[in-house]
């Protein structure tokens, strides 16, 4: 079913000139514990539907949940990394709603007693620092997966739905910001940078894979507009289904332009949940005109969590180097410029892959070049994350070793990348199978040089007359004849020997 979109959009720059943007972000992160939040079922992804379930995560009567200690530990470490206070004492609460992905008809979450609260992080966009106030980090559980059958496969028009509860009860953290003001024209980029920061932080903490494309990390983006000079918050919309860093930026830009057009035309922004569509637009979802009533109450099956101050301090001591400090340290160690570092930060996952490639023996500049230029482009074209592009840091280091040894030119190395990405094996295998190695064998090169001299008598004469710089044209001819595989330095020597 195609979705008909006919939103009026104001030019982004005009919207920025007329309105101030207020953004709020709710980020859900699945923790990478081995077992679920309240039971011993595995959190492993996939598996036969409903094979990772038990009476607890199915919410059967009489079952009793028990809190996974590792999940609390991870949550506290996340809270500390975000500069949060850790509650002395807090409870879980039941959030009551009816939806088949929650078999008990309530989600166990936290209401007004979050485990972590009052934090803040600073992110940098184009050299400018933005403070993101974090209101709270609380614990909850993931839901099952519904598949809608009949109609178009969407919930609307579906005949019925199927439910797989394998994800039900997987530990989930929700990180909620306070309204973010003062981002100027950079709101969408600030949001994107904040998400990238969170993702990097989760991985450094080792608490989540934080892969947005797999749903390990999900974002709901709230935005509202205020006419310039006004201090009264406008009506906000909440956009869901934002599954990549790029999408969060695009979805916010779209909503800002859409709301600006509505307001400029004298209209009223409807308070609603909207869905981001990868086609590049949002569509109206549920109206939130009536505040939802989840009838929260303390979860009677779970006793309060009261982390001792000693435990909190022990956990604080385990925190890794903050991402910003780590980046600064690596930048200095690798000798990269600000601009080079910004390019790296602009590519999801590049920093980690470059670090691993350097660890595997490649020079820093080469590691950066392959990942940020060549492989990032390939990943982009294939629509996959950089670390899923099909080449490992070890393989990139091996490729560069071949370049450094003189066996490959950069140009040939790119063909080797083609081979590795096509599944033809390790770089050395591809070089052998495709016959890509640089030819520095004198007899083959000498013959090619003779042919080039014969074909270009004018240029040859110039070189004989002492115009050595003319050799470039002959080198080019030889390279062309040998499909770029000639050792250019040796070719030059041979030309000068023959014509000198």
């Amino acid at each position, binding site marked *: 079913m195609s979705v008909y979109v006919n939103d009026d959009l104001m030019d982004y720059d005009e919207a920025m000139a007329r309105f101030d943007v207020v953004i709020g972000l709710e980020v859900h992160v699945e923790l990478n514990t081995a077992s679920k939040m309240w039971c011993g079922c595995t959190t492993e992804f996939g598996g036969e539907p409903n094979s990772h379930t038990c009476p607890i995560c199915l919410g059967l009567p009489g079952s009793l949940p028990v809190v996974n200690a590792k999940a609390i530990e991870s949550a506290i470490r996340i809270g500390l990394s975000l500069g949060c206070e850790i509650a002395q004492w807090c409870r879980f609460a039941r959030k009551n709603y009816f939806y088949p992905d929650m078999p008990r008809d309530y989600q166990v979450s936290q209401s007004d007693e979050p485990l972590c609260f009052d934090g803040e992080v600073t992110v940098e966009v184009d050299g400018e620092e933005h403070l993101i106030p974090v209101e709270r980090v609380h614990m909850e559980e993931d839901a099952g997966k519904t598949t809608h*059958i009949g109609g178009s496969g969407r919930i609307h028009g579906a005949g019925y739905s199927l439910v797989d509860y394998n994800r039900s009860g997987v530990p989930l953290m929700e990180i909620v910001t306070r309204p973010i003001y003062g981002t100027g024209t950079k709101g969408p980029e600030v949001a994107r940078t904040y998400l990238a920061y969170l993702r990097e932080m989760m991985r450094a903490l080792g608490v989540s894979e934080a892969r947005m494309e797999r749903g390990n990390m999900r974002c709901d983006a709230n935005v509202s507009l205020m006419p310039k000079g006004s201090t009264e918050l406008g009506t906000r919309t909440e956009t869901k289904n934002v599954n990549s860093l790029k999408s969060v930026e695009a979805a916010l830009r779209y909503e800002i332009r859409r709301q600006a057009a509505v307001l400029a035309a004298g209209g009223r922004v409807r308070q609603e949940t909207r869905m981001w569509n990868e086609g590049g637009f949002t569509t109206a979802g549920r109206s939130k005109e009536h505040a939802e009533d989840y009838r929260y109450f*303390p979860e009677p099956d779970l006793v309060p969590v009261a982390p001792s101050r000693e435990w909190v301090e022990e956990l604080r001591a385990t925190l890794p180097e903050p991402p910003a400090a780590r980046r600064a340290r690596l930048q200095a160690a690798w000798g990269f410029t600000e601009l080079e570092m910004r390019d790296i930060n602009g590519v999801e996952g590049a920093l980690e892959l470059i670090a691993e490639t350097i660890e595997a023996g490649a020079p820093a500049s080469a590691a950066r070049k392959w990942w940020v230029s060549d492989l990032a482009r390939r990943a982009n074209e294939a629509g996959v994350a950089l670390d899923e592009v099909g080449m490992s840091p070890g393989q990139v280091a091996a490729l560069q070793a071949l370049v450094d040894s003189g066996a490959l030119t950069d140009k040939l190395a790119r063909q080797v990348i083609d081979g590795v990405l096509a599944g033809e094996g390790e770089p050395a295998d591809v070089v052998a199978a495709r016959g890509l190695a640089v030819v520095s064998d004198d007899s083959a090169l000498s013959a090619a040089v003779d042919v080039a001299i014969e074909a270009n008598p004018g240029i040859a004469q110039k070189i004989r007359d002492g115009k050595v710089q003319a050799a470039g044209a002959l080198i080019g001819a030889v390279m062309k004849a040998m499909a770029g595989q000639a050792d250019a330095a040796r070719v030059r020597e041979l030309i000068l020997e023959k014509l000198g």
Partner: protein
Amino acid sequence: MALTPQDVARLADLARIELSDQELARLAPQMDEILESMTNLAQAIDDDVPPMSHAAPLVNVFRDDQVRPSFSSATVLAGAPAVEDGQFRVPRILDEEA
């Protein structure tokens, strides 16, 4: 603050309980009486008594992060009213959403 049948109807709707007008009219004063008893109870408690949500004075009841065997999907689905492709088959959701 007397509960009206409309208040009860709203609560019943949230809890997915279908009640007739007669039932709403009968339940409203009964629920009102329960609320009033709670108000009386609240008056008997000093401010220095912390709110209690659990009968046992326990905190931090945790388990180690260890995987234990799950049930087989056949067992899990045995009690389901409807099953398809190893999954729970549930009625269309749209009506709930509207």
